[in-house]
């Protein structure tokens, strides 16, 4: 049996009033992995993180850290460090005292403690601020202090609750890169919670997408982006158009569903039965757009016809909304380099198509 750094087995959380926050949560985290819990607010991702830290009790199931059951161990005795969303620095202590707190708790001799605190302050560029009170520092500095305070005690797992949430957009990008480098350098397991897909996709080795207390999908970022397994993930990640259909049929490695706009052919991301209700997920950036003419795509595969409803360009990406009729609109993204396409205006009749390998068929929600 391999030793996982962190293992959650059938973890459930039910509050006394009967509401279920998390149910049937199963996850194995390898040593040194960077895992993100991603989902909308209220999906149970923070509750799960707090259960791993020990701040929330679990209603059933088990939590194992390095094959040791920690389900009934209080947070102060778990080998985890948590980075709080608001950093939770001790406001009456200076930077050095904040970082040294965890080592004082361990009754570490003062000389050794100071050496460790100095080293980590140096690593995070905090040495200049050592004697400063924490409430006079900027968000980025406070973030680094929180990380230093959590890491100096050498936890086996670092838990981060929306660590970038309180920072402005530019700083967020800087700290995001720092986090990634830091994790690679230290090699310890990071579990972090976020509601921003760009953070999860950019930082993590694996992403756990959660919705209403349940896991929707656990995948590597690229796979999550290209092969969503549920309608929820398809809507939540990337900018996809979904077309509901029925009569699922298989042909080689392809599957197709009958939608209101013809048969859409793609690949199944999860096992399904022939004839089932299903949904075609079409990524906006995979669609090709062309002025409407019957000879455009000879095969006629995955072709949709409509009129341009809206268009605008952001930098190098042109965004189109194509009205297919009947209240269905598809999003299409193209490069603005294509002058021919950018000449199209609202109301023009166009056709769009997408290669089958870029379309994913998921079970109907």
């Amino acid at each position: 049996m391999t030793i996982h750094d962190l293992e959650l087995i059938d973890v459930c959380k039910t509050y006394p009033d009967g509401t279920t926050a998390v149910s049937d949560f199963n996850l194995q985290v390898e040593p040194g992995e960077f895992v993100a819990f991603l989902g909308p607010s209220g999906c149970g991702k923070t509750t799960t993180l707090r259960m791993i830290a020990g701040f929330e009790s679990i209603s059933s199931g088990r939590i194992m850290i390095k094959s040791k059951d920690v389900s009934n161990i209080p947070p102060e005795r778990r080998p985890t460090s948590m980075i709080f969303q608001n950093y939770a620095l001790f406001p009456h202590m200076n930077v050095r005292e904040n970082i040294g707190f965890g080592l004082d708790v361990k009754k570490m001799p003062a000389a050794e403690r100071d050496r460790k605190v100095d080293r980590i302050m140096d690593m995070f560029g905090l040495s200049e601020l050592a004697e400063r009170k924490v409430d006079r520092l900027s968000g980025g500095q406070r973030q680094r202090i929180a990380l230093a305070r959590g890491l100096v005690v050498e936890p086996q797992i670092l838990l981060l609750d929306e660590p970038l949430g309180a920072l402005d957009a530019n700083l967020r990008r800087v700290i995001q890169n720092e986090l990634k480098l830091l994790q690679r350098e230290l090699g310890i397991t990071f579990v972090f919670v976020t509601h921003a897909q760009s953070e999860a996709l950019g930082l993590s080795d694996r992403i756990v997408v959660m919705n209403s207390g349940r896991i929707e999908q656990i995948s590597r970022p690229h796979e999550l982006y290209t092969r969503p397994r549920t309608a929820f993930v398809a809507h939540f990640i990337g900018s996809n158009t979904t077309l509901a259909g029925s009569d699922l049929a298989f042909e080689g490695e392809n599957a197709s569903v009958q939608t209101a706009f013809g048969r859409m052919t793609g690949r199944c991301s999860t096992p399904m039965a022939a004839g089932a209700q299903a949904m075609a997920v079409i990524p906006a950036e995979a669609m090709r757009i062309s002025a409407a003419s019957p000879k455009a795509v000879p095969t006629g595969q995955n072709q949709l016809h409509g009129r341009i409803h809206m268009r605008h360009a952001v930098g190098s990406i042109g965004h189109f909304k194509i009205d297919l009729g009947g209240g269905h609109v598809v999003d299409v993204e193209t490069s603005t380099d294509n002058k021919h396409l950018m000449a199209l205006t609202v109301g023009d009749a166009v056709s769009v198509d997408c290669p089958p390998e870029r379309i994913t068929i998921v079970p109907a929600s």
Partner: protein
Amino acid sequence: MEIAEKASSGVSTVSVRASADSPAARRQRRERRRAYFLLAPGVLWMVLFMVVPMIMVVYVSFWTQTTFAIHPTITTDSWVRFLTSSTYLTSTWTTIRIWAIVLVATLVIGYPVALFIGLLVRNTTVQTTLLILCIIPFWTSFLIRIIAWRPMLGTQGAINTILLDLHLIDHPLRFLLFSEFSVLVGMTQIYCVFMVGPITFMLSRIDPSIIEAARDLGAGFWRIFWKIILPLSLPGVMVGSIFVSVMVLGEFATAASLSGRKVNLLGNIIVTQVGSLKWAFASVAGVVLTIIIVVVITALLRVVNIRKEV
């Protein structure tokens, strides 16, 4: 205060004579007038009812007091009498001793209550309800609250009766009432809530995630209490201590009705002397009391700089 400072600093920047009538200078003058106007009522009140009476009390303490009259001939007779009489020095010492014991007692009893309401109860409705319960005794008169201790502490009072019935004692405990003990009990009960309030306020402002962060780093309850909760609640402790100190040091009613005349505080001396029209002597006691209060508050403010903390 701040407004006045702003106004005066503004004036110094417009010192150039030529620009005295510029719109900016006129606006500065208008703002300064408004600042003084806003300050005036408060300053007037304090001068009329605080500064002037204080000066009068100090002045009167040097007047000549005869058995039946008092006249404004300056003398130190009253001061000499106060500082050489063992009765008055003893009562000064009693005042300080009772203040110290009551301060510690209200803190020791009040802090856990505040800890419960401010930190353990996180529901604000329940918090408010509990605080209101703390002030319910104030709906009855101060004297009734004190005198209510008599049937509790008396020789045939509730406590003695219960202890006798349980055969824990053979004779009623006599030290319970009309003693320093009963004064301490009465004062602690009455002033405890003034300690609970400010501490609860400070504790309820502590971000719960700070305590979680300390736990996460391995700290147990006592370390979290000494290193996190207590330091963060100190401003509340200081404000509560100032409330309790000011009220206990000026006390006379509790001692008068629960001590059986055995405990004489400076407040009791002032009441007695004023009652027998010994104004000069009452003034001496008043000045001594004021000095003690100023020293106590200054010392408390030294411990925690409240303006910096809040």
